[in-house]
């Protein structure tokens, strides 16, 4: 019998019986390979030679001066191959799937970043790939749909429910239950049944480890604050994890407030959610009094999810990390701000972290250091932001 590691009361393995053996098989495989020197060497080589790691830690001098508080560094996950942190996790999982002898990979995607990363690594490793994407997301990120197809992946638009990320996950889970014997489900965030939240975090924790080492070299000390955006929460867990034991480091997650955390048009899970059991895990979800999962909204397809990874629920409950809700308007302003201020166009997801940083940095001392995780690049969002601003551009 397996030993399920939980985060306080959060986590677990709430999946249909049909896939339980596959979940256990994954536990065994991950246990076997996570500390295997050969596996680690292969993954490190892929990180370095394929993804372009380590990603840069850039001192944002103009932004620092403009905000007049903490010294601001940007962790440039946007410079990774495929344009986001998602590649870290996908390289790890698909390398593992290959070791497990799986031939077919399925994945869900919201904004398309995880889907593109999965399609990319499947092309690299010669795997069959099928990506589920909500029809609403597929429409607002049509370029990424074509990109995945270009990489040789099938993209299945999901019409059910709200046509967004949660529905893509539902459909991926149904596919997994159907084709479980030959299919590996490559989950894109720190969510789902054990061991996914732990495993995805472990494949992403290199972000925080690099921040710590790079900052030590540049400043000789720890940061005072690390800020990252949170949907399911993989880039944030990756950035936070190595600092959890360093109590002096404030950890801030920026979630998607949509039109406001006090409105129905929001995806601010921590601000508005309650404990529930869904998508394989006990965690915090946006839901009604009968436990029906709420339709959520955010300008960012990647943060448009009604739940949060169980480790974030735990960090929130224990007070180790703070979570703030950022509205669409604040995120778009931050998107424009970083573009003009530093010549870096962040993903609209990452712009939520930038917006939180813009609020927090001025309250910090000039001798203090803040790191913002720029989880992805914003090319994919230019059309969406233009439309938000009422500007007509060709998609």
């Amino acid at each position: 019998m397996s030993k399920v590691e939980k985060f306080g009361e959060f986590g677990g393995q709430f999946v249909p019986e049909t896939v339980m053996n596959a979940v256990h098989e994954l536990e065994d495989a991950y246990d076997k390979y996570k500390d295997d020197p050969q596996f680690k060497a292969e993954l490190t080589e892929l990180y370095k030679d394929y993804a372009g790691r380590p990603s840069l830690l850039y001192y944002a001098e103009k932004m620092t001066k403009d905000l007049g508080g903490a010294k601001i560094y940007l962790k440039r996950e946007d410079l990774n191959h495929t344009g986001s942190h998602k590649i870290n996790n996908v390289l790890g999982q698909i390398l593992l799937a290959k070791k497990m002898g799986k031939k077919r990979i399925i994945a869900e995607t919201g904004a398309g970043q995880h889907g593109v990363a999965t399609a990319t690594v499947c092309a690299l490793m010669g795997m069959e790939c099928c990506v589920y994407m909500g029809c609403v997301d597929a429409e607002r990120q049509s370029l990424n749909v074509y990109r995945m197809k270009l990489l040789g992946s099938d993209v299945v638009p999901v019409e059910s429910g709200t046509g967004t990320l949660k529905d893509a996950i539902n459909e991926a889970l149904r596919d997994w239950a159907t084709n479980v014997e030959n299919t590996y489900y490559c989950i894109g965030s720190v969510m789902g049944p054990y061991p996914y939240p732990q495993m995805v975090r472990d494949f992403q924790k290199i972000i925080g480890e690099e921040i710590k080492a790079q900052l030590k070299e540049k400043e000789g000390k720890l940061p005072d604050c690390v800020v990252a955006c949170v949907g399911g929460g993989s880039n944030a867990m990756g950035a936070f994890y190595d600092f959890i034991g360093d109590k002096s480091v404030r950890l801030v997650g920026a979630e998607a407030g949509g039109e406001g955390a006090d409105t129905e048009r929001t995806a601010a899970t921590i601000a508005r959610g309650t404990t529930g059991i869904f998508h394989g895990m006990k965690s915090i979800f946006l839901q009604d009094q009968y436990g029906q999962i709420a339709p959520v909204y955010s300008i960012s397809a990647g943060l448009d999810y009604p739940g949060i990874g169980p480790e974030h629920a735990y960090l929130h409950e224990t007070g180790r990390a703070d979570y703030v809700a950022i509205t669409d308007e604040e995120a778009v302003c931050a998107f424009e701000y970083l573009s003009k201020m530093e010549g870096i166009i962040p993903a609209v997801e990452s712009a939520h972290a930038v917006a939180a940083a813009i609020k927090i940095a001025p309250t910090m001392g000039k001798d203090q250091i803040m790191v913002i995780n720029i989880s992805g690049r914003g090319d994919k969002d230019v059309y969406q932001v233009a439309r938000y601003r009422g500007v007509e551009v060709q998609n």
Partner: protein
Amino acid sequence: MMNRIDKCFEDLKNQGKKALITFVTAGDPDLETTEKLVLEMFDKGADIIELGIPFSDPIAEGVTIQRASLRSLNNGTNLTKVFDTVKRIREKTDKPLLFMMYLNTIYVYGTERFFNECKEYGIDGVIIPDMPYEERDEVLEYSEKSGVVNINLVAPTSHGRIKEIASNSKGFLYCVSSTGVTGTRSSFTTNFDEFFGTIKQYATCPCAVGFGISNPEQAKKMSSYCDGVIVGSAVVKLIEKSGRDSVPEVGEFVKSLKDGISQ
């Protein structure tokens, strides 16, 4: 007092018969019709009925029951209203009634309150497709205290886990016929002799098979392997087609299934 499920299987066994278990989504197309459908199905030969509690994200269901859930939710169905319907049904029948529902609905309602109300209103068991055996502690205490049975599931992919699950089951063991979600299938690839051979070696209660059984011929064939068959999506399809007028059609269909497994 003997649980209604145990009594049902015992009576059938004494008569040399197999159980017919049917499913409807509560509130599809409305709760008044659900009440009529349940009574009609019992009248036409169903031995046990599962009431599906609609959920926004039914990950174990195929498209037919997904659509039924959505229709029901759009009509404003919720657990409180379903309990009212159960109360009315219980005034007219003493046959076993189960809920098939997702764990979040129970958790958010309050697990203790939920099982107490099941007992109070006369629900005999619950099937929770997204709660595997390993997570049974979520409900075990309250299920045992209330006597409302938590029905375990096994699947063809359960392999080495069948022993542990089957030997710790109550009411009946829900045997999932094949991989995938609920919904009709034209054929099955599972090796049933092997699957049920393993199950019967360990099962401490009757076994019923479900997922994909849609006509009297399939019901007859599948009933030969175990103690009962479960038919869901095929019933829901008739309700989808004829809505409030589906009651006689559903009754005829249930009768044909009962005749099928009685041959």
